């Protein structure tokens, strides 16, 4: 989230698209009901189904799954055509004025530089024109034909309301009604907030879905302001923490990233991470990358990381592929190239697509270790559960070890919520049976591995032997110790660079924030964005003071928000070019003539003059990006691409199937249904229900009571056509597998007309499996395709093709 849960109450308009907040985030949804009750805010829901969020919405419109970009580009087109743009904001705070290099073009769904054989672009022209002064060239008049604004205008012009209806199935008058509601928020005193979740990420163009809305929010002037923002509703408790501390295969903590195998030394690595400002006076905060990186390496390797060995740069693994994401790991597993797999709090047999392929992969492992507080399908993948999980245990040689762990209510530590708040929590109960904290298990494994390396050596034991492990009990580091390590501390006395007689930091003391981190090895910080969360003043994450001066929704004394306890990112953009709030009634910070002050921690240097320094300090431009340069693999502007499995061809680029740069493994092409095939005529989507949390709560009796048995949702029209009865059994199958489920026949799903063709939607909740208290069911991922987003490989769970028929119940 750019903003926070509590800030949603400050909005005038909520749009829930690509998510279902009432259903999946009921507790956070209270801030929507607060905004509605107290500010008269309106709620728009755009979704293939009339869902629980829609039940309390002011306006609902249907959309076919996988067509959000067409809808969003349609909104941008409508706003531009109808002058619903916050011009002062757009001109000053976005890259609308920047001139793009000559040679950049877009045609028939593709940008310049596409190489079909590589399924990738040469992205060299996707850049700004750089002037003789070394800065990007801009045109403040927005008249240059290659300025971002004119390219954007051109790019979105195809997405007319008629085109939106043709692609999305959203009736034109409903689209226009929504456009008008949103257009009002181009006023400096009206804001809209976007709440989205997996409904946008789980597509082969998920990242571009989100960019589409971010661009709209920028031209409406809704980023950095109270009641605005791009608000990703994180699903798993602490999934925000997972990305923060870099648990993705190509990440390091604090959004640093792992070197590739071409970056063999630190200077090459740093050369592309200089982040030189692209406009005069800009902060380009990533210029501090080296400080954060060196402090991280000191935290990892302590005295073994020295200036001489480039801070132990050689200890870091170097990636030979863009990422070892889960889809790639399972593809490698299926090829027999993985021996050992650790599942820590993870149930991939349910959570990743194409269950048959996953099971085949797991069957080829030598060892599978499952660390979980609950029984999982993954740990039992080898068991035969009849139709629910066909397996031949005798033919599977994988050894499975289950290590019972504690659950969140038995742990102490911090969880990071969607609003970037690190909230400390205390155990509510003692671990049952043999369950152990994850930290204990990992430490025990590490200490044994280390002993083995010490004894036997090996090709390169240094990273293991020299890993810094200074805990009171090496067998189980305490949550406080780990939190302090992430916060960071001074390793020696740190002196003021201006006045070396002054000590800035004393050796051994915790740092107060990332501003004091150094690239000379004098400071250590495990995760720079968490600096300030555990300081000499105490555990900031454990703070529970809910005072909120002038009811701004900031709650600065409640827990700790990264970065620097800031509650709304880019908050300098809440003020105009003179540093005065766009909306005085929603003041956040302001320029008092010499510095920035206000209710939130300013997201800018305290004395940075408002006319000089742009609000988007993490970007080298100082502005938000309507044009993403070469940073997205699939284009600097979002383009509507159909899902890999679609009932219709792409209207704007009929030859393109799916996202043209999304990675597809060779075997998986054969497992996609052809566009418009009569074998699989229905557009399917998967989703969550309020009554359950993923595959956990089916283990809990009360949740199992509330939603006991697997079902699929279809329209009354489709039910009639296929002779499926309400509450009767239906068989749903894709090219990859089949499930049997009860049929919920509903008015809340309606057939759509797409490019003249009737398209039916089949909705498939995901919560059932073959273990747990609820009735046995089929994992929904039996059906889903093995392909991910072109940039981050999130699987395309939200749009694929199936067939359906009336059936009898499973014979277990």
């Amino acid at each position, binding site marked *: 989230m750019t903003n926070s849960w509590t800030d949603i109450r400050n909005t005038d308009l909520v749009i829930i698209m690509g998510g279902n907040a*009432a*259903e999946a985030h*009921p*507790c956070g*949804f*209270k801030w929507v*009901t*607060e905004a*509605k*009750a*107290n500010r*008269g805010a309106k709620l728009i829901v755009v979704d293939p189904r*009339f869902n*629980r*969020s*829609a*039940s*309390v919405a*002011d306006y*609902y419109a249907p959309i076919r799954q996988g067509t959000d970009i067409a809808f969003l580009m349609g909104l941008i087109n409508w706003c531009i055509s109808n002058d619903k743009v916050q011009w002062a904001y757009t001109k000053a705070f976005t890259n609308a004025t920047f001139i793009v290099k000559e040679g950049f073009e877009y045609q028939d769904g593709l940008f310049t530089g596409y190489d079909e054989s590589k399924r990738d672009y040469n992205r060299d022209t996707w850049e700004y024109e750089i002037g003789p002064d070394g800065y990007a060239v801009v045109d403040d008049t927005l008249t240059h034909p290659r300025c971002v604004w004119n390219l954007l205008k051109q790019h979105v012009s195809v997405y007319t309301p008629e085109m939106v209806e043709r692609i999305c199935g959203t009736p034109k008058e409903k689209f226009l009604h929504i456009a008008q509601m949103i257009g009002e928020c181009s006023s400096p005193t009206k804001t809209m907030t976007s709440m989205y979740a997996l409904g946008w990420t789980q597509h082969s163009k998920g990242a571009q879905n989100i960019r589409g809305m971010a661009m709209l929010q920028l031209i409406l002037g809704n980023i950095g302001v109270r009641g605005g923002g791009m608000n990703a509703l994180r699903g798993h408790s602490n999934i925000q923490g997972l990305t923060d501390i870099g648990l993705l295969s190509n990440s390091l903590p604090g959004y640093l990233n792992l070197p590739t195998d071409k970056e063999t030394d630190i200077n090459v690595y740093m050369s592309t991470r200089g982040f030189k400002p692209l406009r005069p006076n800009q902060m380009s905060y990533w210029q501090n990358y080296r400080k954060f990186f060196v402090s991280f390496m000191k935290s990892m390797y302590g005295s073994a990381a020295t200036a001489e060995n480039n801070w132990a740069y050689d200890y870091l693994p170097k990636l030979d592929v863009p990422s070892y994401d889960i889809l790639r790991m399972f593809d490698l597993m299926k090829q027999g190239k993985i021996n050992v797999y650790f599942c820590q709090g993870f149930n991939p047999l349910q959570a990743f697509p194409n269950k048959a392929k996953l099971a085949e992969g797991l069957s080829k492992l030598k060892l599978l270790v499952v660390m979980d507080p609950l029984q999982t399908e993954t740990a039992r993948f080898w068991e035969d559960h009849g139709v629910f999980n066909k397996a031949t245990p005798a033919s599977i040689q994988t050894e499975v070890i289950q290590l019972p762990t504690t659950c969140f209510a038995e742990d102490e530590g911090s969880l990071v919520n969607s609003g970037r708040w690190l909230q400390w929590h205390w155990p509510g109960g003692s671990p049952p049976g043999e369950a152990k904290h994850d930290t204990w298990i990992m430490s025990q494994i590490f200490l044994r591995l280390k002993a083995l390396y010490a004894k036997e050596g090996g090709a390169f034991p240094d990273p293991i032997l020299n890993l810094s492990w200074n805990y009171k009990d090496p067998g189980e580091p305490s949550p406080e110790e780990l939190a302090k390590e992430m916060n960071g501390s001074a390793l020696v006395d740190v002196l003021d660079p201006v006045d070396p007689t002054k000590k800035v930091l004393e050796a051994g003391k915790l740092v107060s924030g990332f501003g004091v981190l150094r690239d000379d090895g004098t400071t250590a910080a495990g995760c720079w964005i968490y600096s300030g969360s555990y300081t000499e003043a105490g555990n900031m994450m454990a703070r529970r003071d809910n005072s909120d001066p002038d009811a701004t929704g900031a709650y600065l004394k409640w827990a700790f928000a990264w970065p620097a306890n800031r509650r709304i990112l880019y908050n300098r953009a809440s003020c105009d070019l003179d540093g005065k709030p766009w909306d005085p009634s929603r003041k956040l910070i302001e320029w008092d003539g010499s510095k920035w002050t206000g209710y939130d921690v300013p997201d800018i240097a305290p004395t940075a003059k408002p006319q000089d320094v742009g609000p988007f300090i993490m970007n080298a431009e100082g502005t938000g990006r309507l044009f993403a340069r070469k940073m997205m693999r699939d284009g600097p502007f979002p383009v509507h691409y159909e899902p890999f499995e679609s009932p219709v061809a792409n209207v704007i680029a009929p030859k393109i199937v799916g996202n043209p740069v999304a990675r597809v493994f060779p075997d998986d092409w054969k497992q996609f249904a052809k566009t418009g095939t009569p074998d699989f005529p229905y557009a399917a989507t998967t989703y969550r229900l*309020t*009554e359950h949390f993923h595959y956990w709560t089916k283990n809990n*009796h*009360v*949740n*199992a*009571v*509330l*939603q*006991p*048995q*697997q*079902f699929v949702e279809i329209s009354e029209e489709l039910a009639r056509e296929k002779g499926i*009865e*309400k*509450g*009767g059994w239906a068989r749903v199958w894709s090219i990859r597998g089949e499930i049997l489920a*009860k*049929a*919920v*026949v*509903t*008015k*809340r799903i309606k057939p759509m007309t797409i490019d003249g063709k009737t398209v039916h939607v089949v909705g498939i909740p995901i919560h059932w499996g073959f273990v747990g*208290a*609820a*009735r*046995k069911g089929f994992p929904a991922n039996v059906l889903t395709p093995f392909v991910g987003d072109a940039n981050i490989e999130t699987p395309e769970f939200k749009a694929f093709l199936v067939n359906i028929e009336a059936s009898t*119940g499973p014979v*277990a």
Partner: protein
Amino acid sequence: MFPPIPNPSVAPDAAKPRFGEKDIVRRSASEVTPPAERLTEVAKLIDVTKCIGCKACQAACLEWNNLTEEIGFNHGVYENPMDLTPNTFTLMRFTEWENPETENLEWLIRKDGCMHCEDPGCLKACPAPGAIVQYSNGIVDFQHANCIGCGYCIKGCPFNIPRISKVDHTAYKCTLCSDRVAVGQGPACQKACPTQAIVFGTKQEMKDWADFRIKDLKSRGFDNAGLYDPQGVGGTHVMYVLHHADTPSIYAGLPDNPTISPIVDAWKGVTKYVGLAVMGFAAAAGFLHYVVAGPNKVSAEDEENAEKLTEGTAPPPPDPAQSQGNTQHGSTP
């Protein structure tokens, strides 16, 4: 935001109940001397227009009251179980309603349960002395030790709420968490509700809060938004805010004008004895059936048929014998 009820004090006398025997204003099949002073009336307000149907109230009710409901089946709808049971005191009911004026679909989600009537039909119909009591704050509570399981409370209830347990043969329904309210807390469902669709306070506070909500709804075009506090039963201590207060029955059969059946009013006359005789006969007949034919057994086929019969229909009729059936599913299909 409605001011949240503070957490309970840990002071030693804070746990002392704030009301009890001395505050009883009505007692089934008995005369009571009304207390000298009436407690402030309490009420729970269920704002259907803020409800997202998450069922947190349903879960909280099971957990606070330590109830175990059976894991049932899907019947083609979001409700589960399909009806109130001796364990399910509160149930979310979902109605897909096409508004004829706007042609828009509305998904009406109503939390069903005891309304705690000011003039309680269950209490009036009850033949067992002291099985049902009403406190002066408005809470209508069942006292299981006195209940004879006759089911008359169900006949007397204009909202079809109580259910008879097959385990202890006594009637169960929402207590308005009288144990929590007695120590200054709100009901468990209210505590669990994430959107403040359920709020709790004095009856007057609830009416005022409802006015505030109704103003907002009218500003959004719900001209018939209003408070459901039916006067036919003297008003209730559980009230609803409805977007369409002119047609309560669209909310899964919420009675438009609930009143106590005239038969109940005649109860105190001769019918009392006739009724008791019929009851005794029925019990004897039931026992005889058990002895001769053995207990009823449900086959998988029966179950399949039962599922088909119940799908998509309104909640089963207020027949206590049938309503228990929902908890008796055991076998897998």
